[in-house]
């Protein structure tokens, strides 16, 4: 597996086991009946605008974290784009057109996946679901289309692609900043329409996550740069 | 900001501003640069004279500015600082003239004169520092501004000298820094007071006071070239003549000696220091340095190295005067601060002229130089006699007081040290004079580095040398006058002893 001297293995193995032992011992000493924030979340559920507690925490109580997390995703794509010649997906190596059977199958599945992603997005309000799951499913649909050599993604111009990448992050920020005009802290949604705002943010996030996931997967393929070696 | 507060700042700023302006002056503008230099020097001289007149009439000049809580930047003019400020500004005036003449046509002079003015700013700041922290700030600033002067020529030899100079002064600065911080932790404000302020503190601190004293003295000893720490001085001779003149007569060495005077008188107080038994080791160290410096000077053939070792021993006179408990010996030490400056700068001026006009650098090459360059050698002789302690010239007054003080304080062996060092001074100065005046010229004179001129050397070089020689003669003859450095030294010494 690696050219390290066997003693290195032994040393690392013992260190790892010692670390595991210490961690396990501490886990044992953890209190078994902690208060946890479940009850607190329960009290505020009625004001959060969504029924599912995790979505409430993710998008309302700790919306700031989720917003920054979208930022992290965006930085990852920026990093990936560093190694591309252009800032978009246009000259990703186009896959050869799939055989008719695969082509037909993908034409059938892709809209279904879009439907499923819409459903997941809507379900987020009531049970586990939401922007990330829907975004990934939509991204998978795009990857499938790309694999089958479908020209749809090539039509995505550089500007639109970059706009779509940033739409989730910016909508979240604008929604949050909007209510600062009425002297509310950042990311405060009015109680009545909180649910709608969250839905709006989630849809924007879905699109940008879908494009990000597709870009990351397609961006990692060996593109033109295989041939020409940068110094 | 009344005038009393502004004056000390103006004195420091006058050379600092000229320095900065010269930095940004393009190389070819020689005349504007010399004009700026001279303007700065005269302005400083005038301001200092005003200050002397003010202090004489009892004015109080103080500029206080707090950088951090309990850490004040204070410029205060008392009699002791007056001594060094006048010396620095007078000698800087003449050294500037000399430097302008000496560096005619040499490369990057803007950089040289920029650092030259910064260096004098630092030495004036050292003189006028009101507390130990400001003293330390200017002390370290001095290192920074003198290093580029030492390495000015950029030759490998001068870089080596610069490296050695740097290591000594940096290490010294670090030791001094530890001492100052430790004292500040124990005692808080470190403002200088006439008879020292450490006596009032409880006896429990005396142990750490002793350690702090030695830290401070070692830190200052590097620049004052005490025995084990003097290594950088002879090596730094590789710098151009005005630099070695400025470094060894006015700026660096005096800062160290002045620091020792401040620490012993205005931080510890001389009686408190002798109660703690701190003075005797200092006396022993300084006496050893005096003898060691003179012995080493005997064997040096290179003229400037010989003068460097003589400086090593002469500066320790000041420290000796300070460390011997007694009014007259302190007067002797303090006044030697001025006298040694005047005499040593004359010697270096003459050494520079010899190198510049006849490219004579070694003592053996000086046979018969008296006939070739009578005026310069006359000035050299006056200063040499002063160094030995021959009566009319200034040196005699300080040695006389040192000897008297040693007798009064009941340390007769110090007289022995003074005698041996005087003999040794004679030992390494008289052969030069004899060779210069009475022996025939052996070697051919080297070519001159400057255009032919009416006298033996350009006026810009000759005039400062002659003037400083006359000054040292006059201060020697009129030592008793009301205005002489001796009177000033006596006034200072009177204040330092608890009535």
């Amino acid at each position, binding site marked *: *597996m*690696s*050219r*390290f001297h066997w003693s*290195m*293995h032994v040393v*690392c*193995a013992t*260190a*790892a*086991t010692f*670390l*595991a032992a210490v*961690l*396990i011992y501490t*886990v*044992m000493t*953890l209190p*078994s*009946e*902690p208060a*946890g*924030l*479940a*009850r607190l*979340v*329960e009290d505020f559920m009625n004001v959060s605008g969504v029924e599912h*507690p*995790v979505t*409430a*925490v*993710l998008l309302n109580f*700790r919306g700031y*974290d*989720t917003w920054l*997390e979208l930022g*992290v*995703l965006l*930085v*990852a794509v920026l*990093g*990936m784009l560093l*190694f591309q010649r252009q800032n978009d997906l246009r000259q990703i190596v186009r896959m050869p057109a799939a055989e008719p059977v695969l082509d037909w199958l993908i034409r059938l599945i892709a809209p279904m996946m879009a439907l499923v992603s819409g459903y997941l997005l809507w379900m987020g309000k009531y049970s586990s679901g939401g922007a*990330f799951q829907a975004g990934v499913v939509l991204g998978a649909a795009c990857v499938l289309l790309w694999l089958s050599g479908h020209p749809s993604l090539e039509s995505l111009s550089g500007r639109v692609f970059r706009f779509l990448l940033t739409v989730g992050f910016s909508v979240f920020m604008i929604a949050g900043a909007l209510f600062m005009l009425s002297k509310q802290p950042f990311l405060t949604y009015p109680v009545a329409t909180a649910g709608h705002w969250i839905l709006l943010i989630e849809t924007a996030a879905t699109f940008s996550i879908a494009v990000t996931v597709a870009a*990351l997967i397609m*961006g*990692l393929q*060996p593109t033109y*740069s*295989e041939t020409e*070696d*940068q110094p | 900001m009344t005038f009393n507060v502004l004056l000390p700042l103006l004195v420091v700023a006058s050379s600092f501003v000229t320095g900065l302006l010269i930095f940004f002056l393009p190389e070819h503008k020689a005349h504007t640069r010399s004009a700026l230099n001279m303007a700065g020097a005269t302005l400083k001289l005038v301001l200092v004279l005003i200050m002397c007149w003010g202090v004489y009439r009892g004015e109080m000049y103080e500029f206080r500015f707090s950088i951090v809580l309990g850490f004040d930047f204070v410029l205060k003019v008392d009699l002791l600082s007056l001594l060094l400020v006048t010396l620095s500004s007078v000698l800087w005036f003449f050294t500037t003239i000399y430097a302008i003449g000496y560096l005619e046509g040499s490369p990057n002079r803007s950089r040289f004169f920029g650092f030259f003015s910064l260096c004098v700013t630092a030495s004036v700041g050292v003189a006028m520092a009101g507390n130990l922290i400001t003293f330390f700030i200017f002390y370290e600033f001095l290192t920074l501004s003198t290093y580029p002067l030492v390495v000015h020529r950029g030759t490998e030899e001068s870089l080596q000298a610069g490296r050695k100079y740097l290591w000594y002064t940096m290490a010294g600065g670090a030791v001094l820094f530890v001492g100052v911080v430790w004292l500040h932790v124990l005692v808080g404000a470190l403002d200088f007071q006439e008879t020292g302020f450490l006596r009032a503190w409880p006896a429990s601190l005396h142990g750490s006071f002793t350690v702090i004293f030695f830290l401070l003295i070692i830190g200052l000893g590097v620049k004052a070239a005490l025995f084990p720490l003097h290594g950088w001085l002879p090596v730094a001779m590789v710098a151009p003549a005005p630099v070695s003149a400025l470094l060894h007569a006015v700026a660096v060495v005096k800062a160290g000696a002045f620091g020792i005077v401040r620490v012993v008188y205005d931080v510890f107080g001389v009686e408190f220091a002798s109660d703690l038994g701190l003075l005797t080791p200092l006396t022993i160290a300084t006496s050893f340095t005096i003898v060691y410096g003179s012995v080493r000077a005997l064997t040096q053939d290179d003229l400037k190295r010989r003068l460097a070792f003589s400086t090593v021993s002469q500066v320790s006179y000041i420290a000796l005067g300070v460390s011997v408990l007694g009014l007259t010996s302190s007067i002797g030490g303090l006044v030697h601060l001025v006298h040694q400056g005047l005499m040593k700068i004359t010697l270096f001026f003459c050494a520079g002229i010899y190198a510049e006009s006849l490219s004579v650098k070694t003592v053996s090459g000086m046979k018969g130089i008296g006939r070739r360059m009578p005026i310069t050698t006359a000035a050299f002789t006056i200063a040499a006699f002063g160094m030995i302690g021959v009566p009319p010239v200034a040196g005699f007054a300080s040695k006389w007081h040192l000897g008297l003080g040693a007798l009064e304080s009941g340390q007769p062996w110090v007289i022995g040290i003074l005698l041996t060092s005087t003999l040794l001074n004679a030992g390494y100065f008289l052969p030069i004079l004899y060779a210069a005046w009475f022996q025939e010229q052996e070697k051919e004179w080297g070519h001159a580095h400057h255009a032919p001129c009416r006298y033996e050397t350009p006026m810009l070089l000759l005039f400062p040398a002659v003037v400083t020689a006359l000054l040292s003669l006059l201060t020697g003859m009129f030592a008793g006058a009301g205005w002489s450095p001796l009177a000033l030294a006596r006034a200072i010494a009177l204040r330092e002893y608890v009535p």
Partner: protein
Amino acid sequence: MTMFLAYAVTGMIVFAIGLYGVVIARHLLRKIIALNIMAGGVFLFLISIAARNSQAFPDPVPQAMLLTGVVVALSATAFAIALARRIYTVTGSATLSDGER
């Protein structure tokens, strides 16, 4: 209670294995996979905290932390793979040349 202990302990073991893998692995892809295993261990421990006591529904805050953590780990891994790919293209070898961890 024992359900929490089971998951938490496995989480710790997986964390340690992942750490061992990161230190030992020389091939970049193995290192990145090991990093993900390590992340998996932490997330397993996080999720095991959520359902320790018998309330109406498990504590949603660790779940939210888990979701955010997973997405952050995903983006870091994606960037790491892109970087590893780039290193392979430029240097021709998929290991850090002077072989430290």
